């Protein structure tokens, strides 16, 4: 045992220059992996910006002041007001479902469920997150479509259908982030509340929810970001009509679905193509801002 230490430095010194180079190469590689996310984000902004920014700047006022999205007409019109409203209509409606259910489930998992039930439920919620987008779209078409018609909708493919699908898709995110936020509240808070004679409801309402407020907000914002960017499911479920909705059962069309449906046949480099990239840029901007706010809120929680 005592003889071991002298051997170690000799061994380390023995393989000379080559290993040092290998060491450096691997270090550089790992560093590259570390910053690759940043490179990708910048590259995506550059790529989409190159195709769409010019168009967005030139036509911004026209796009923002018209509901007529007729990119293949002569002359074309690129009004996106209806598409923007369609997007936020679906996302907003979906929040009406996902926020109470998701945060309610988070409270249950964190405060009420037995450890066993919690394990099972968390696995199930994660499975919900693993369902592919196109399968959700399929559910919208095959199950919600007739269901909504039975409720009196003329067409089952409409804004409400898309919103329900979006709510189901964002639910796992809300549940797990919401639960994390609640469990991050120190147990001493709960103990203090109980010591003061608070009921369970009072503990949750007046102690835990205010303490976990920021974490909950982050969960909701990330859910919004996810919902705004969702494409395939809303393309299939919303009815895909350029339409300013006046009722729950009106078909709508979202920004993402428009890009997905039309990019395939838009002539590369043409006006329509660039307009679709401008939509992509706009979407990127929206999700970027939402995520940034979420990030800032998260930082706020830690201080």
């Amino acid at each position, binding site marked *: 045992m005592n003889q071991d230490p002298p051997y170690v430095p000799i061994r380390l010194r023995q393989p000379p220059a080559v290993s040092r180079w290998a060491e450096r190469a691997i270090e550089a590689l790992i560093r590259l992996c570390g910053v690759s996310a940043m490179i990708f984000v910048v590259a995506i902004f550059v790529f989409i910006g190159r195709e769409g920014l010019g168009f967005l700047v030139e036509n911004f006022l026209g796009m923002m002041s018209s509901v*007529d*999205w*007729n*990119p*293949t*007409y*002569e002359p074309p019109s690129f009004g996106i007001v*209806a598409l923007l409203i369609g997007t936020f209509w679906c996302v907003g409606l979906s929040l009406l479902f996902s926020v109470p259910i998701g945060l309610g489930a988070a409270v249950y998992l964190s405060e009420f469920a037995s450890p066993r039930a919690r394990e099972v439920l968390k696995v199930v919620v994660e499975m919900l997150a693993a369902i592919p987008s196109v399968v959700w779209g399929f559910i919208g*078409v095959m199950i919600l*479509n*007739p269901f909504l*018609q039975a409720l*009196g*909708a*003329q*067409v*089952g*493919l409409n804004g409400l259908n898309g919103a329900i699908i979006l709510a189901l898709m964002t639910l796992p995110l809300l549940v797990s982030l919401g639960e994390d936020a609640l469990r991050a509240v120190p147990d001493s808070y709960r103990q203090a509340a109980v010591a003061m004679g608070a009921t369970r409801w009072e503990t949750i309402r007046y102690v835990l929810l205010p303490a976990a407020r920021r974490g909950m907000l982050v969960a909701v914002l990330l859910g919004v970001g996810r919902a705004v960017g969702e494409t395939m499911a809303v393309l299939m479920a919303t*009815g*895909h*009509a*350029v*339409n300013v909705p006046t009722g729950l059962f009106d*078909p709508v*069309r979202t920004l993402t679905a428009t890009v997905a*449906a*039309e990019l*395939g*046949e*838009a*002539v*590369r480099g*043409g006006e*329509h193509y660039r307009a679709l990239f401008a939509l992509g840029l706009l979407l990127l901007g929206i999700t970027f801002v939402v995520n940034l706010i979420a990030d800032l809120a998260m930082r706020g929680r830690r201080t």
Partner: protein
Amino acid sequence: MRLVLVTGVVLALAACGRSDDVVLQVKGSDTMVNLMQGMSEAYAKVEPKVIVAVTGGGTGTGVKSIIDRTADLAMASRPMKAPEIEAARRNGVEPHEIVIAYDGLAVYIHRDNPLRQISFEKLRCIYAADGGCQRWSDLGVSLDCGGDDTIIKVGRQNNSGTYEYFREEVLGRGGKFTNTMDQSGTQQVVDVVSTSRCAIGYGGMGYQTDVVRFVCLSRHEGEPCVEPSLEAVAAGKYPFARPLQVYTDGPPQGHVAAFVDWMLSEAGQRIVLESGFVPVPKAPAGTATGADADAAPADEAAPVEGATPAAEEGQP
């Protein structure tokens, strides 16, 4: 353009390495992809040394590829537009149109809908932005879909050839569509119509089911209507049929000409029929076209050497 063909052939040779194979690049209309794929497979038996490579992407893509000279043949489910032809000419390409089949568009409704016939004027009233027909009662049809009879207007996405064709024929040049539910295929149009009793949609003729019905069509109100059928389209009686065409750079030559001739031969036209489209009328070419002024090139393309043997071999 012979240069283009030669370049294409050289590139193709370089790509596949076999010295005597010729690759013809065909791009364009998604409506025509299956048809052209069928043509390609059958032609491989007739002329094994010629490989016809088919790519979809839409009529716009096809037209773009003939302008860019990246394809030997462009498939188009609508005639090329004036600005496209200008763009081609600026590039030194002279688009040459050959009609290889007809596609009949049908108007679909739910089987519970009592509507039996409709004119283009009424369709315009339903589909145009300024049309004004919002309810089935506006058309004198009594239909109830849960206490309401709002017409559910189903259409195609704005870059499909079908959308463009419907717009041109029904809404008129420069006409604007109202807010339709834009589907990305005729199958989806039919799916929506089959689940919504108050819906109306349009698309290719091959999608009739037990739940949806064709509507008998007339161009003008009060005229006798025509049910969509292959016979009616071929006879030029059906008002809602469009030519499916291919474009070449100048009149086709060499292998392209041989392939085009084979497509117009009996063997090629049999594949048209098998794919659910309507063959081009044989002897007096150009009579059944009606809507399309420039159909004559179809027979211009015919007399080229090497074409006849290919056509005959194609008949089993």
